[in-house]
């Protein structure tokens, strides 16, 4: 049989019932076996939970503060929203290596011997480029490019190629008036 107070016991103990309702429950309690039993159980649980709440949890690791502040410092400047803020939260330092390798490949294509030689090739590398060449991925890309370069230049030096070029020259001269 419902007395209408079953859902009020916890809020009553928490002091969260409206005054009239709390007074009604207080008057009801002594005469209701079910509510009295529930109340006693809730009081016991309350004490047990209070003991648990006051027990110390493991302390946060000392590195937590440093990690949070570092992440925030990385995001500082515009802690707002938008695509850039979203991207910035996801970019990682290791992503730089392939990006630099790609940049190096583009630079090689632009400055390759097929293009007219540029005097800037002889200039010393800027600091960022010098650092970039220390990245393993960049060094690997540079090695592959060197090999390709050698193959291309070497192909013009074979006797067969020179013979073909010579024959073509002769044919060209014969065809001239």
């Amino acid at each position, binding site marked *: 049989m419902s007395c209408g107070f079953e*859902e*009020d*016991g*916890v*809020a*009553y*103990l*928490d*002091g*969260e*019932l409206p005054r009239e309702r*709390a007074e009604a*429950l*207080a008057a009801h*309690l*002594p005469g209701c076996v079910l509510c*009295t039993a*529930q*109340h006693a*159980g*809730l*009081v*016991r*649980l*309350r004490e*047990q*939970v*209070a*003991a*648990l*709440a*006051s*027990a*110390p*949890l*493991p302390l*946060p*690791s000392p590195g*937590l*503060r440093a*990690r*949070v*502040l570092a*992440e*925030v*410092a990385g*995001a*500082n*400047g*515009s*802690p*707002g*929203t938008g695509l850039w*803020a979203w991207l910035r*939260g996801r970019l990682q330092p290791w992503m730089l290596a392939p990006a630099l390798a790609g940049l190096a490949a583009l630079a090689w294509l632009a400055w390759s011997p097929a293009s007219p030689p540029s005097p800037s090739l002889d200039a010393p590398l800027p600091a960022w480029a010098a650092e970039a060449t220390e990245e393993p991925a960049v060094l690997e890309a540079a090695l592959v490019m060197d090999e390709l370069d050698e193959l291309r230049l070497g192909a013009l030096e074979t006797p067969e190629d020179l013979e073909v070029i010579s024959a073509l020259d002769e044919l060209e001269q014969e065809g001239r008036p």
Partner: protein
Amino acid sequence: MARRTLAPSGRNFPRAPVLNVPGNAMNAPPDEDCARMARVARGDTRAFAELFDRHQASVVRFATRFVGDAARGEELAQDIFVSLFRAAPRYQPTARFKTWLYRVATHHCLNARRGLAARASSVGSEPLAHVPADPSHSPHAVAEGRELAGVLSAGLAALPERERAAFTLSRFEGLSYREVAEALETSESAVKSLVHRATVALAGRVETHGRAA
């Protein structure tokens, strides 16, 4: 007096004690943290560090209790604080800062729990804290206290998410029903039901354990 024993109601009845640790800013004037958030919105990392120092203990504690795992709780706390920094420009001081912080924290923890459930991983239910042994207690009483802590932790882990959130905020963090309602973005009457159901479920577990022991 029977009524005094049975009816310790009213605002003066002591709520479960909030852990008195450094960094617990539960009773701090709300305007200070709101002002700090305004500075954070302008990119002031020192203000952010102050907020972190004031609230890290309670955020880590809440997240740890919520997911039932200390390491995961700390990871979540990190995410929560970084989110707080990023959300600073949108912060409107319509509620106490602490309540807003718990809203962000609860949101993260609920998502984390859903993520764990999606990966079919178990949520930790090991006792996260043991009631410190009182030297005056017998070894039997100490062992019993530890066992009870385990039962309560397992009971918390088994609660539905929102009941767990409402119970944790109310019992362990000392929030009023109104503040819990703000944190969970629901009504006070809904919080009353959530806390009631959670408490009755835990009481039932403890009682069953007591009978079996």
